[in-house]
């Protein structure tokens, strides 16, 4: 019962995705092409985020900690 519910919900989500992106009206081969592109782009965004975001956060953190509290003598001079 629970599984069916979840399945229905996922199907509903997929249907909304089809409607909003208009892939609902595409022909099957176009639709698979569109899905491939979307999935690829999405995967690349996620991967890029995974690779670069932590580094940038660390660098930003270092930068701001340097600016505000790290070396008080630098602000004096």
């Amino acid at each position, binding site marked *: 019962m629970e599984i069916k519910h979840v399945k229905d919900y996922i199907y509903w989500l997929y249907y*909304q995705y089809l409607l909003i992106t*208009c892939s609902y009206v*595409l022909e099957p081969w176009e639709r698979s092409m569109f899905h491939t592109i979307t999935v690829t782009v999405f995967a690349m965004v996620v991967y890029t985020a995974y690779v670069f975001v932590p580094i940038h956060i660390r660098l930003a953190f270092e930068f701001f900690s340097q600016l505000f509290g790290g070396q008080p003598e630098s602000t004096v001079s």
Partner: protein
Amino acid sequence: MERPGRAAAVAGAQPRANGCSGAGHGTLRNGYVRRFPAPDTQVDHIVHNGGLYKRPFNEAFEETPMLVAVLTYVGYGVLTLFGYLRDFMRQWKIEKCQNATEREEQKDFVPLYQDFENFYTRNLYMRIRDSWNRPICSVPGAKVDMMERVSHDYNWTFTYTGRVIKDIINMGSYNYLGFAQNTGTCQEAAAKVLSQYGAGVCSSRQEMGNLDKHEELEKLVARFLGVESAMAYGMGFATNSMNIPALVGKGCLILSDELNHASLVLGARLSGATIRIFKHNNMQSLEKLLKDAIVHGQPRTRRPWKKILILVEGIYSMEGSIVRLPEVIALKKKYKSYLYLDEAHSIGALGPSGRGVVDYFGLNPEDVDIMMGTFTKSFGAAGGYIGGKKELIDYLRTYSHSAVYATSMSPPVVEQIITSVKCIMGEDGTIVGKARVQQLAENTRYFRRRLKEMGFIIYGNEDSPVVPLMLYMPAKIGAFGREMLKRNIGVVVVGFPATPIIESRARFCLSAAHTKEMLDRALKEIDEVGDLLQLKYSRHRLVPLLDRPFDETTYEETED
């Protein structure tokens, strides 16, 4: 500017609805549904310039939610990209080209199929074409039979399976008063006339085609409208497009509503007069144009305009809005211009006695110079009419193209109109006609109220039997049509070019023939499909309604 709130409050006490008993109208204000009935004093600022109105004028055009607009554009973007891909493939013969193309020997001429509308037809419309032009195979009454058809090549061609989908609830025909019937008095009378006169006339009115039936019809229509004289034509579209050129010409000015029907637009263009467009139902905009026209006169020569003609429609068929006729008439009188009122959708469908928008506002038909309307909708027949002063009609009889050149109306059609008009006027000795007008008004109120409660965005006036339900996204146009048909309900979906590109909609036309059960079933299915497709965009139920000013169509709003 005068803002007499009292007048509106007084009107609130009168029986207000379009002939129906006034239960529950206090809960509707500015088109919103409120939980609790408000005291009558709250109704005040619905009507701007309210002194001119004898009834509340509730019209709302909820604005498109930003997110929906963005997603709609995204959808069109995807479709456009794929359209370019397919065009590319067609050009390089990767796939078979099924659309019209230039012939080989015309390749170097000016291209015929490269503008945006062709692109749209080829690559966007074609994908959802199955929701349009479905052949029906019964009388288009409250229920209708449809031929089943399938497409094996993604809507480029259709084949008929030979099966018939029975008893589809018809929410699309302009059958406002339910006179599209194959039984009943109208049909019997028409059949009798058919056996007496035959179907065709084979001549124009000025030659051998002027039957006694035509004379009878014109007298009856004039009496129905309350005008001196009237003339009937065989085609509603041609009534507009051929008579406007007879009325105005070079050196005249036409002020036309931006959402006027194509027939009015065509007529105005054919006339050769200068055309200026005012914003939809916006009296400020109209007054500004009138003022400018009178102050500045014709461009360059500065001579005064010979005539100024205002073109408006009674009910706008795509927006479901009703013209602000009292204000238009006031302006017309103030600036001494002429008024052409197209009652194609409103005649029969509005007003306590079904006499159209003039009756609805309780005005004098004499104030409208040219009353035009059609018999195709409320009367279940074909053709159009023009009513007005006797001099005007006599002039048109001689000079209008559709009077001189068109074949006169078929006698059974004329008889159908005569019987139905008499029925509406109560001259057949029954109250059937009156009951139909009331039934339509009640159906309209009920259907609109329920749709609003469900949270759909509904355009237009609360008394207009044309109910546009906004769909916005291109994929939802096709999906809505298909899902509704699957549930045995026939709807009309509308997209570009009939509407602005992001404002695709479904349009329901109510009928007096719809029973409460049919409407309830239709509403239940619409609700279901609305949940499935996420169409309930309206956010007005969440906003505290009492403090919101009347926006969008406000009378005070001045552009530029």
